């Protein structure tokens, strides 16, 4: 028998799954030559954020694995960093993307934040 709690839990995991897909699409829009500089900015936003409690442990673990393997500047690394940074510091992410003149990505992030 499926309980209310089970349904809630399923909804949460679906939301996370959808969000992951959205972030994957976002990172695919970022030109490879900007991966390093954006990765650096996002890491800084995440590590200096006061909103630690918004970090999902699954995302944190992906970031740590990527850092351990020195691949935070890859597309997979960026996907996790984008997800974490947008959850922790959404407004600052928009500012950073604007600074890097990634207008189309900024617009997509704003859309994501509205939904």
């Amino acid at each position: 028998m499926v309980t209310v709690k089970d349904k809630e839990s399923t909804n949460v995991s679906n939301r996370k799954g959808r969000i992951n897909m959205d972030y994957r699409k976002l990172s695919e829009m970022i030109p490879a030559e900007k991966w390093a500089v954006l990765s650096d900015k996002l890491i800084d936003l995440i590590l200096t954020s006061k909103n630690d409690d918004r970090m999902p442990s699954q995302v944190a673990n992906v970031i740590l694995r990527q850092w351990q393997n020195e691949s935070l500047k890859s597309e997979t690394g960026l996907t996790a960093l984008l997800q974490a940074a947008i959850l922790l510091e959404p407004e600052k992410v928009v500012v950073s993307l604007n600074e890097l003149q990634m207008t189309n990505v900024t617009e997509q992030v704003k859309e994501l934040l509205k939904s």
Partner: protein
Amino acid sequence: MTKFGIEFVPREPYWKIIYYAIQAERGGFSNLWVTDHFNNRNVYVTLTATAVYTDKITFGPGVTNPYMVNPVFTAQAIATLNELTPGRVVLGMGAGDKTTLEGVGVEVEKPLTAVQEAVDIFRKMTGGESVAYNGAVFSVTNAKFLFKPKGQIPVYVGAQGPKMLELAGKIGDGVLINACHPKDVEYAVNSVREGIRQGGKKPDDVDVAAYTSFSVHEDLKKATKAAVPVVAFIVAGSPGMLLERHGIDLKKAEEIRAALKANDWSRAFSGVSPEMIGAFSVCGTPEMCTDRIALLLKSGISQFVVGSPIGSNVREAINLITEKIIPQFKT
């Protein structure tokens, strides 16, 4: 070669500490210490995560105490960690922070005896012995692990007062000295060496570490701003004798103490003077910090531990230490 250690406080979430741990390992730090206070996240869970994500850095609690955690449990936790990462684990053991312990109803009685007995029990248990121990503080009737602990695990004793420093030199494989100023380190090292002599060891047998409050930034003002809150708490908790050694006005120290007690942070922090910063932290630009570390090394330490706050931006500070400070001490 000089060893560099780094301290983390698990008030920060595990993912920040592990990020910095990986960064520190790559940057040339040889030791990582995680503080143990009941009101932060658990030290052994944090150390386990550290073990999984790093490859070579030596790590351990810096420091645990025998009042809150029974030494048999400490031995079990450390022996298990040493199975996970053989040869990379050390124990840091001290008498604990009186104020924090009193907050949970734990009385700090006979600290010298408690630490000595805890280290004895730890070594016997991690040595795979069946332990019957009748001490003045701890009593173990019949304890033995149902698994075989691997290897000998170095024990560092955290110490500040002269008697604990002596004991640390006598029984420890290492000593963690809470001091930032050459005067204090020199004073402490003399006591440690007396203990080493009593223990029939050579000075090089014991790794003497200065566990410092550290703050580095290219901009001196930013480095100082980050150090001020930590120094305020150190001043408030320091005995008069120590303050006088550094020419610090006892009245000013009392004002800081009163302000902290009243949760008046701005009054407390504004009372911190440059003399206090100089006495109770290693703070400044990379060049200034390098000069201070060189002085501390001359005072007889073999490991320099970078402790809280590390810098206004920890990631940047670790990069500065890695790129501009550690290379100065590679010989």
